[in-house]
């Protein structure tokens, strides 16, 4: 042991390795406060949820310290109160499905609107770019709830859109926009689109626009330049933007609550219900963890397929 140490201390490489280890140890020490906060806030709460999901609901909310798998059973199945017959929990499944569908559509719409916006900003002169970025971030200054109610004011039956359309004589009956999936989609797209624009812009800022000229020069039409040159090279931004929009959309709570009314629940609302009126904390915990798993699986598939697509061009 000691002989080995002697010989190794002589070599410069091991000295370097030692210095590296020391540096790692120092860095670890410096990041300890952050790691503690992260552990308590993220892992700690997750652990609590995991434990709660295997307990029995208390009579007036809360939990009883009694092991049970009933909550996990209830995520997917429904047990009749009277005759104990078991059936699939359609309500839960349709809410999960709606959440995934709306989040996917939100991501898609945010991309379709956000990509040209990011392109527009990235092709402005450096001074005006900052102004445009500033405008994109302005909505963040106002509370989400207030912005959501503002949308409600715009699209409700006596709201801005309908009033104007009726006054112009385009329609004679107000359009039913509020409390539909479309309303939720509109609201979520509005809320999350900056999270799509900013990462795509960050990718495009580093993009060499001379490549666009090179492709034009080599007989590529505008559409082909977009598909073959611009999109593959700003893909990291598109992936980041999609994740940043999809994940919070899936857990959205305020927007579907205000704009979807009571009829169009999303997972976030369902979970909230279990901790509130439902008085079923274990089920709420189990639903939360299910949501977490859905997000993780979706992300893994998305990133994998996006990378594979990039690899086909690259190798």
């Amino acid at each position: 042991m000691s002989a080995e140490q002697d010989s190794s201390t002589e070599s410069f490489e091991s000295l370097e390795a030692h210095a590296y280890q020391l540096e790692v140890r120092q860095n670890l020490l410096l990041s300890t406060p952050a790691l503690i906060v992260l552990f308590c806030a993220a892992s700690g709460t997750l652990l609590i949820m995991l434990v709660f999901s295997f307990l029995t609901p208390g009579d007036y909310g809360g939990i009883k310290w009694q092991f049970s798998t009933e909550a996990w059973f209830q995520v997917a199945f429904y047990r009749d109160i009277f005759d104990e017959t078991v059936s699939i929990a359609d309500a839960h499944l349709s809410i999960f499905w709606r959440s995934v569908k709306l989040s996917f559509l939100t991501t898609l719409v945010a991309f379709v609107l956000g990509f040209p916006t990011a392109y527009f900003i990235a092709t402005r002169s450096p001074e005006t770019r900052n102004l445009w970025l500033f405008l994109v971030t302005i909505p963040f200054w106002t509370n989400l709830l207030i912005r959501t109610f503002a949308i409600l004011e715009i699209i409700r039956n006596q709201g801005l859109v309908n009033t104007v359309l009726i006054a112009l004589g385009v329609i004679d009956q107000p359009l039913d926009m509020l409390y539909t999936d479309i309303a939720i989609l509109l609201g979520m797209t509005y809320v999350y689109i900056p999270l799509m624009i900013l990462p795509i812009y960050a990718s495009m800022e580093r993009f060499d626009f001379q490549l666009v000229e090179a492709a034009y020069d080599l007989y590529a039409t505008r559409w082909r330049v977009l598909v073959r040159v611009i999109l593959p090279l700003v893909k990291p931004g598109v992936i980041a933007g999609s994740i940043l929009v999809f994940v919070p959309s899936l857990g959205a709570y305020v927007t579907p609550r205000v704009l979807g009314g009571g009829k169009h629940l999303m997972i976030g609302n369902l979970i909230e219900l279990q901790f509130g009126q439902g008085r079923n904390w274990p089920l709420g915990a189990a639903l939360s963890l299910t949501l977490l798993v859905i997000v993780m699986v979706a992300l893994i598939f998305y990133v994998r397929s996006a990378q594979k697509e990039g690899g086909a061009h690259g190798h």
Partner: protein
Amino acid sequence: MSDDVAVEARGVSKIFGASTDQEVRALDHVSVSIAQNEFFTLLGPSGCGKTTLLRLIAGFEHPTDGAILLEGKDISALPPFQRPVNTVFQNYALFPHMTVAQNIGFGLEMQGQSKDEVANTVGAMLVLVKMENLKNRRIDQISGGQQQRVALARALAPRPKVLLLDEPLSALDLKLRKEMQVELKRLQHETGITFIFVTHDQEEALTMSDRVAVMNEGRILQVGAPHEIYNRPHDRFVADFIGDTNFMPAEVIEHDESEVRIRLPSGIEITVPAPPGLPQGSEVTLAIRPEQARIVTDSDAISIQGSLTDEIYIGTDTQYRVDIGMTSPFVVRVQNANGERARIPLGSRVGIAVDPRTIQILQD
């Protein structure tokens, strides 16, 4: 006649930022025609409009006034992807997400050629630029010189009628640049494609080109073969920009069809070949190349006299700087015979002898 013309610019002007207060006239009524299979160089300092002219031919910019003709057809309004003209960019602009072979094949693929056709042409191009064994490398895995070759192959692959090269050698080190100059000449010869080459390096322009256009401030000052440009510059800018030149004011005493008698500031009168249209008694500038003058120590045949201030040894040559009582010293370059050089003590009075036939008269 027009069968032989590859590209023609007819009274082309380009104004950037028109109708704002920062209007920039990048090109001012430029007319030039470039022959088929010619190695044509646009030479000038940065901001002279050479790159703008190239971009107008490529289609990245459109002329404010005038027209660009390709083989006699007006292409001014066509977008770049409809012009049979390809560009080699200064920083190459290779697609970083594609391999060497995919880069070269991009233009062919966009033209709608079949996979086999693309593969065949790409193969031939890889041989042409000697990159066969690196065809599957990514762009960031090859050197600058190799990237240069890929950029050339990519632009040549679709067999354009004209190849535009925008200072393509400026990012390479000196040795590689010399190699690529020879390589470019070879490629132009083998492919038979018209090359329009943009550079600010006069040596590059002189060694590579069939014809050179010297540009300044949005105008073409002189077009001609390298030896014409070098030996018979039309104006002071061209003489100054191409090679080293001594300028000297002089006065025209009398002249006829072929010869002109002029008086130097020192009072000495000499007879030189006359340029056309020189008014009697006018002030002119003489341009004398350093290598066309000699240092003489004996007193006969002396045209100009001064005192030797500097002697600079530059390998093959020795440069002498002679103070002849003007703001800048007169420079004489003498070849070192047998590696030896004649030693003249600094500060001594010397004479400068010049063959009158090599003196160029410039009218300002």
